[in-house]
């Protein structure tokens, strides 16, 4: 690690002070405000803090927080890791993560999709993992094709940076197209509504099971180097490594495979890395189980149609489910996307709708032919359910509201 120039040292000290003060005043973990202070004093602080370190960037619409957590757990096999574990995934958060763990050589940064080009320029990554791209908060964010083009442009300008990319996502495949060193992971893609047509030429993609190709221009699903078979990951050299995850769902097995591939790029063998993923039991409250009034309540965060589809795959059979929907600024003000989700997987369960926009959910569930009830909040939902297991699927601020309520009581 290189020594910091005086201004950067001062910026780092002020960053840590601001973050600490913000944390003490109860405004979150202080990552964002700390990074803001640091970058105001020294605009090149992120670059200076990343210099001489081994940085992995992890980006995509869904799964980046969990994959970052898995990857950090794997890399900790060789020592401390700097990581933005609270999901502060913009440059302010990255700067804080790097400033807080100055002694850590290895760094794993979760990157908001829109900021990937900037992080590539400033953090000189050793490897980048690209998970997936799908529609998300279109009233304030870029559409999928625009984001993919932005990635492709940045990745084409740095073709020597090794990538770990999801072969099942045509947009990711196209974005990674000009890179010389791509390790492909069969990362899965339950959601296919954003990839009807070829990212490269606009003609229809043909799909046969998991395989896809464009017969017009030839863009084809790359042969994956890492694949998943049940609870086992098949590595590029053909060996099989068992997963014993505490996090549910096929999508988390795919996230784990990506983490093992990143660890491999850091010369940590999958056999060493895989057992370390078992220690990840919740990620910033996601998948956490809260016990209350005789109920075991599991919290799942899902922010967009692709995420809700994956969440349905995680539900315990027959378990009642609470759906929570808000539409505040960070959620996007537009709830239209709930019509892109087919709710039939919750058919036959007891279903309760809560959240600021529970009336939107009610109309949606009615149209879907699902029996449901609507109550005011998570407290009322729990009271309305019998003792036992409860699953909660919530979008971003709805999830935060529920966590805050549980923290208040527990």
């Amino acid at each position, binding site marked *: 690690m290189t020594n910091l120039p005086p201004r950067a040292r001062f910026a780092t000290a002020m960053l840590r002070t601001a973050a600490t003060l913000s944390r003490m005043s109860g405004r979150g973990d202080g990552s964002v405000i700390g990074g803001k202070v640091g970058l105001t004093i020294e605009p090149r602080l992120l670059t200076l803090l990343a210099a001489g370190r081994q940085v992995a960037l992890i980006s995509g619409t869904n799964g980046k927080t969990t994959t970052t957590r898995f990857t950090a757990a794997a890399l900790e096999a060789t020592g401390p890791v700097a990581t933005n574990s609270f999901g502060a995934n913009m440059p302010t958060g990255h700067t804080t993560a790097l400033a807080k763990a100055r002694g850590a050589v290895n760094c794993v940064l979760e990157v908001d999709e829109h900021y990937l080009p900037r992080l590539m320029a400033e953090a000189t990554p050793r490897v980048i993992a690209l998970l997936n791209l799908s529609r998300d908060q279109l009233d304030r964010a870029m559409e999928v094709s625009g984001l993919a083009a932005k990635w492709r442009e940045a990745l084409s300008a740095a073709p020597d940076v090794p990538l770990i990319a999801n072969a099942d996502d045509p947009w990711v495949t196209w974005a990674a197209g000009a890179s010389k060193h791509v390790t492909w992971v069969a990362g899965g893609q339950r959601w296919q509504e954003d990839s009807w047509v070829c990212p490269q030429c606009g003609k229809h993609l043909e799909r046969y099971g998991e395989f896809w190709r464009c017969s017009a221009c030839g863009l084809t699903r790359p042969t994956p180097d890492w694949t998943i078979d049940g609870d086992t990951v098949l590595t590029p050299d053909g060996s099989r490594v068992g997963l014993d995850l505490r996090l549910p769902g096929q999508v988390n097995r795919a996230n784990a495979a990506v983490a093992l591939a990143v660890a491999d790029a850091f010369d940590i063998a999958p056999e060493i890395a895989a057992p370390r993923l078992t220690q990840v039991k919740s990620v910033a409250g996601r998948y956490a189980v809260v016990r209350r009034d005789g109920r075991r309540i599991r919290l799942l965060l899902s922010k967009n149609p692709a995420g809700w589809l994956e969440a349905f795959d995680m539900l315990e059979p027959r378990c009642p489910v609470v759906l929570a929907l808000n539409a505040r600024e960070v959620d996007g003000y537009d709830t239209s996307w709930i019509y892109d989700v087919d709710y039939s997987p919750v058919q036959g369960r007891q279903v309760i709708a809560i959240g600021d926009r529970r009336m939107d959910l009610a109309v949606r569930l009615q*149209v879907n032919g699902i029996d449901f009830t609507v109550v005011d909040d998570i407290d009322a939902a729990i009271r309305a359910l019998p003792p036992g297991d409860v699953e909660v699927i919530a979008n971003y601020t709805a999830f935060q509201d529920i966590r805050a309520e549980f923290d208040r009581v527990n």
Partner: protein
Amino acid sequence: MSTSMLRLVWIYPDLLSTYGDRGNLLILAHRAESRRILTESIMVRSDRPIPREADIYLIGGGEDGPQSLAANKMIADGAVAEAASLGKVIFAVCAGYQILGESFVASGERCGGLGLLDMRSDRGETRAVGELSGKVDPRLNLPELTGFENHGGRTHLGPESSPLASVEHGIGNDGAGEGAWRDKIVGTYLHGPALARNPALADLLLAWSIGRQPSELPVLDDAWAGKLRGERLAALPST
């Protein structure tokens, strides 16, 4: 009805389905089935012919590239224009709405539309994003229109088509009028599942498609939609 089943056609979901556009198809099918009207929903990819024997045609929203491509394909296909001349029901939102007009602007170029509504669209100086509400043309006998708009276009109506509503909140066509209609063709800037918050509009389309008055349709329990409408309209800042 032209067939024993009410046939709903969603045109080009591969090109025009940005954000919940499927909702309009689901809502029409649900409201018809709830009245024991059997439905058949057909999603037509842009490399397939659009069925000529259908009752309601739906067109969704999309980005500039897919919008101009979809317009060209619909013009070449001819089925939508034929449906309009036969008095079939057409309901289009956002980019699909613009396609119903004489012309629109996509990727900086003026593109020809289907010419089914007397109107032309161009680019506004700002993007219109947010809640939209307005009083519906009294001849349609519908309650207040409510929904979410997210578009960069502005639309100018000629004498042969009428605004669907007069804007009370939001932008719509130009800050004054919102959407357009003539005969059984309706377009709106309310994007995505526009009918979710406007069940009476959904029923008007259904009634048109089976040659009845909306008042002749069996009444459905719209308590949830009513609550949603009330909540969204009450949440608007007072103007």
